[in-house]
């Protein structure tokens, strides 16, 4: 079964019913099942049932995805991408498609508040292939992957971060359940918030009885704590309590899409006052 996802942001006018009807008609042309997922509100409905989609309560600025699954998903994705790019704000998730209207996942993109953060943050992603995982599984996954995360977080001085990360893991595992691990530290040595995401195509053990993990999401924060940082990260970690939210992170395979979901969640506490950042 082929699966495709289209990530987009709902524009200022929301989703008027004529757009819903157009979406229904387009989805009806294909054998693939098209599901509309609202990432912001964690709910979904079949694209061929406009009333159900209406009941999702999509608002301007919501991050959404079309999930397309079926033998002709590739074709359906091409057609629906054009539709989405015209009617909504398409989020660039793969380098392949050159769509002029698409916006990229950047925190400072003033045009939309979907990814807005009132502070500087670097976020990097990496995927680990199946062969590498076989090597990793032979030894301790943590020992292999923590250094990699630290390298991504701070290429200049990964050793320092690694030491702190290991210390933290010794107290208790940072596995969050639902296949996600969230190694995180805070220190005076850290100058700027940063995140690093590693996608694993196969689950590895993370020293916890809450099950193996397929996504490693590491974050580092400068100390002493600043309120916007804590608000953003506490909101994100609380979202991880929701199994549906974790599924969004584990089922998305495009690094940019994962980044979009994470940044969108981090930015939620600041949406109301996005014009006057509180610092």
């Amino acid at each position, binding site marked *: 079964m082929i699966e495709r996802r289209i990530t987009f942001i709902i524009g200022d006018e929301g989703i008027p019913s004529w757009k819903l009807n157009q979406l229904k008609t387009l989805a009806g042309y294909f054998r693939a099942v098209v599901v509309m997922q609202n990432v912001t509100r964690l709910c979904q409905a079949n694209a061929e049932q406009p009333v159900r989609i209406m009941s999702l309560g999509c608002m301007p600025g919501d991050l959404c995805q079309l999930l397309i699954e079926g033998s002709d998903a590739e074709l359906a994705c091409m057609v629906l991408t054009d539709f989405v790019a015209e009617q909504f704000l398409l989020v660039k998730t793969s380098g392949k498609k050159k769509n002029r209207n698409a916006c990229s996942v950047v925190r400072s993109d003033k045009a939309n508040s979907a990814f807005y953060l009132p502070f500087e943050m670097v976020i990097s992603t990496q995927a680990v292939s199946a062969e590498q995982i076989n090597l990793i599984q032979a030894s301790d996954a943590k020992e292999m992957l923590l250094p990699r995360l630290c390298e991504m977080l701070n290429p200049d001085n990964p050793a320092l971060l690694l030491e702190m990360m290991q210390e*933290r893991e010794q*107290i208790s*595992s940072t596995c969050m359940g639902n296949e996600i691990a969230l190694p*995180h530290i805070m220190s005076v040595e850290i100058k700027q918030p940063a995140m690093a995401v590693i996608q694993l195509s196969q689950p590895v053990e993370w020293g916890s009885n809450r099950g193996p993990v397929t996504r490693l999401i590491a*974050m580092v924060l400068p100390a002493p*704590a600043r*309120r916007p940082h804590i608000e953003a*990260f506490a909101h994100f*970690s609380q979202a991880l309590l929701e199994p549906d939210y974790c599924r969004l992170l584990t089922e998305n395979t495009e690094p940019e899409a994962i980044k979009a979901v994470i940044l969108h969640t981090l930015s939620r506490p600041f949406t109301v006052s996005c014009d006057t950042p509180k610092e």
Partner: protein
Amino acid sequence: MRIVAVTACPTGIAHTYMAAAELKKAAQPLGIQIMVETQGAMGIENQLSFQDIGRADVVLIASDIEIEHRARFSGSKIHCVTIEEVLTDPASVLRRCQEL
């Protein structure tokens, strides 16, 4: 039943708030009144007063580290759990408190 709880974790940016949210969510269907103090990176929030502690049947401490101001709870019935226990099955943690 009334429970007062304190959550804390080494970094204080994730687990502390997650555990607090889970406890509050799980308490409602069990008919438990719960107040949760978080000792996170922002310092102590929703601090428990002596009155709160005095009225509570059980003090629940969910933490992987030593908590601040523990002396407040001397004389109370204290139940200590790890953050992981709370995040895995908050309802059973609360049920254990009920059985104390």
